[in-house]
């Protein structure tokens, strides 16, 4: 195709897409208006039924728990793919990891930031069904703490903190928690991923509340954090392998 034709095609496509987007945006409900009957229904019943003050967590881990398990498995599959592709292509033993020379200030500030990220991550996970946040968000924050350790302390510190076998295991356990709670529910004659602790939902707004949601929440955190750490590790190992190969 010549340049002129391509420009024409792009122009027509961009105009069409733009018009559709404007049309769709004009049809959105006004900011702050409550239109979804489902949303207001959940807002009224979730705290009473599930004792979870973060209604989003109640939806993600209970009312729509099966969808969430699908998402977990997508993450698991994606990480599997990356690990299979990169580990296969790499020599098994990377040898002594080499650290870049870094300033002491970078190390001090970075490790301080990593500590804060770790604490915030744990807080967000543990209060997932009480305040905004939860396993997915907290898991990402936890993983970013490990990324900060690499940036501030170098590859050797990062490797010592994240033994690959432990990360692999955490990834699998996170996904297994979901499947296990679902299947136990089925075995007891309940719905898949139904609450397994009906008599002990606890007081809404405290850490000991929400029944199975609290366990699923930690499972999701483990799975997401391990997935991100695994991805970081694979990419960083690639980098190290290449450096060693050039020496």
């Amino acid at each position: 195709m010549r340049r002129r034709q391509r420009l024409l095609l792009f122009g027509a496509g961009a105009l069409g897409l733009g018009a559709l987007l404007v049309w769709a945006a004009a049809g959105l409900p006004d900011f702050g208006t409550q239109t979804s009957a489902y949303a207001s229904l959940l807002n009224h019943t979730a705290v009473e039924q599930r004792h979870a003050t973060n209604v989003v967590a109640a939806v993600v881990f209970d009312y729509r728990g099966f969808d969430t398990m699908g998402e977990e498995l997508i993450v698991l599959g994606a990480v599997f793919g990356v690990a299979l592709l990169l580990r296969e292509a790499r020599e098994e033993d990377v040898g002594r990891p080499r650290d870049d020379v870094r300033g002491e200030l970078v190390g001090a500030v970075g490790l301080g930031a990593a500590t804060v990220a770790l604490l915030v991550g744990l807080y967000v996970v543990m209060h997932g069904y009480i305040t905004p946040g939860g396993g997915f968000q907290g898991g990402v924050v936890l993983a970013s703490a490990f990324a900060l350790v690499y940036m501030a302390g170098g590859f050797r510190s990062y490797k010592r903190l994240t033994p690959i076998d432990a990360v692999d295991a955490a990834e699998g356990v996170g996904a297994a928690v979901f499947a296990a709670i679902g299947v136990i529910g089925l075995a007891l004659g309940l719905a898949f991923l139904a609450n397994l602790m009906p008599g002990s939902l606890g007081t809404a707004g405290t850490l000991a509340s929400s029944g199975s949601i609290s366990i699923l929440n930690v499972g999701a955190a483990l799975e997401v954090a391990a997935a991100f750490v695994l991805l970081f590790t694979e990419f960083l190992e690639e980098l190290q392998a290449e450096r060693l190969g050039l020496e």
Partner: protein
Amino acid sequence: MLVLTGAGAAVLAVTRDPVRLAILSAIYGFVLAVLFTVFQAPDVALSEIAVGAIAYPLVIVVAIAKERE
């Protein structure tokens, strides 16, 4: 806030230097996080801060380092 988000996206799209892109995308992640908070989605904002400020720039920086070897 919406205008700032749009302008930021445009700046990111025309940035060609990868190092500059890594730094700008971290800042843009923060802008997005503020936008999510304004629209009452604090949980989404939390993950955006972690991904936008740390995870995504790290991937770009590692890619640059690999390219320069």
